[in-house]
């Protein structure tokens, strides 16, 4: 039977329990099993706490880039395909900019995470959750480490024989790591930006 919120509130007041302790009110939903938590939680934060065991190098990644079909959409050298460029051609500017002027959404050149993302973890996260197209989520941890290593190596961020794993990946110093500022705090009922017209 469901307990009425009012009754519960009265009970809480009688027994002197504070609501701020955030006790459950409705007792709906169930506790996930450890396996469910592990399987569902595919978020990899900048600290890399959630990174699974495994490892990979750029050499393994180069083979996977062909064998997993990445080349079909992203081009043989990670550029020139129908899908976003992943590897900056030598000598080309790596400055953040618009790849498509009609879609100025404050986006850095789409796909160029290796040179514009402040953390390498987002590359692992996105390759692992979102690639390859149509077979998303099918890559093993080793494959995700290897492909991340391959793209970082081809963009001159790491060396070819650097081994990426849960410990080394979050420590990679990304070229644009220092070029970004923190997100400002959001407050209810305030303008977006002080003094903005």
């Amino acid at each position, binding site marked *: 039977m469901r307990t009425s919120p009012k009754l519960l509130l009265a009970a809480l007041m009688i027994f002197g329990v504070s609501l701020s302790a955030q006790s459950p009110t409705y007792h709906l*939903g169930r506790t996930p099993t450890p396996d469910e938590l592990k399987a569902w939680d595919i978020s990899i934060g900048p600290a890399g706490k959630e990174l699974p065991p495994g490892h990979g190098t750029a050499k393994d990644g180069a083979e996977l880039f062909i064998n997993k079909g990445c080349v079909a959409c992203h081009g043989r050298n990670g550029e020139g395909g129908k899908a976003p460029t992943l590897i900056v051609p030598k000598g080309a500017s790596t400055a953040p900019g618009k790849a498509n002027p*009609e879609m100025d959404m*404050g986006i850095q050149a789409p796909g160029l995470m290796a040179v514009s993302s402040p953390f390498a973890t*987002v590359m692992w*996260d996105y390759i692992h959750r979102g690639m390859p197209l149509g077979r998303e989520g099918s890559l093993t941890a080793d494959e995700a480490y290897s492909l991340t290593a391959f793209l970082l190596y081809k963009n001159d961020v790491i060396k070819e024989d650097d081994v990426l794993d849960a410990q080394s990946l979050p420590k990679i110093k990304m070229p644009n790591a220092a070029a970004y500022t923190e997100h400002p705090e959001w407050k209810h009922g305030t303008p977006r930006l002080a003094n*903005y*017209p």
Partner: protein
Amino acid sequence: MESKKPSRRKFLASGAAVAGAAAVAARSASGQTPGLVPVPTSEAGKKAIKEMVAYGDRSKFVTYVREPADGRPSPDAFGLTFHVVTPLGESVGSITPSSLHYVAAHRGFYVPEIDPKEHKLMVHGMVDRPLIFTMDELKRLPSVTRVHFLECIGNRSTARRNTVAQTHGMTSCSEWTGVLLSTLLKEAGVQSGASWIVSEGGEEVKGASSVPLSKAMDDCLVAWGQNGEPVRPQQGFPLRLIVPGFEGIYQTKYLRRVKVVDRYYMTYNDYGHLQKDPRTIALTEQIGPKSVITRPAGGQQMAGPGYYEITGLAWSGGGAVRRVEVSTDGGKMWKEAELRTPTYRMAHTRFALPWTWDGKQCEIMSRCTDDVGTVQPSRAQVAKFWNEPLTPNFQVKGADNTIQVWRIMSDGSVHNANFS
């Protein structure tokens, strides 16, 4: 009472019978008893009867639809859907029909077929009690119904966009029903030190966004209803996170997971927001006060000099619309427009101003003030803020909420005058 029956029956029948109306008129004229409606016998009439029971269609005489943004093929070479805009020039009132709601996707996406009986939402991370909810359990929780607009940050006027669908069609407004995210977070018990959540969808790419915990606890809605029915598949069926007033990418479709975390989590979606200038970051999150005249608007044709009602939509990511002003002389004089729909927070509001066009070339525009007190700026004001020259190439940083100017030519044609 008796006398009401035939007229009611007539109303119902003629309202649904697409081809029936003409038939009724013809038979009435041929001498049949007025008020009695014959049973339609044409194929169109039979379809109309069937449809009166099934999911109703609009009149075959109403044909406007959505269109791909900037004519970009959608689906594209990979079969992915990108940005599709709402035909705002035809908009009525403040609610966008679900069938005409804009569609946008960061990477492009396939609409997944999710069985609501199988769908679950997990709330976990920095909480005392991680929880998994079924759809039935979510619907048992206290629900709220709120009107909110959504808007893509790419919704902006450009020199190549001439109609109001093209310049502003990546915003739509719905009545959303669901459970407050704060209700779910309180059930799970947010731990101290938490400052952000990551919301994640169940489509193939599992699109995820970081949302400030302050916003998550304020007014975010885990919606299962849209405009009186389940959320549409293109809009996230069976469950969508609504982050009122924030740009579209935060409104996670096919919501399957909410993780409470202690920092900005830098998902693939977030990565697109990164800027070097903290001022630009502030302008990419929440939508500023904004309005646009939807009639007369670019691409439309005036019938000639005489009386018109200038009408449009106003909204703000910061709160409710407090007032809308309209200028018909290029911004020299402003008149207060009438607000024709309720002014809900973070919702489209319909405004109107009576006007007599003298047939001469003129420029019309609207500007909105929200209840935070922020006023919609002109492109000139924004260029001045950034110390940049106001040229047609000047691009407003972050979400563009600048005033839209329409030029009415003496031949009655209406054009985008923002860039010329």
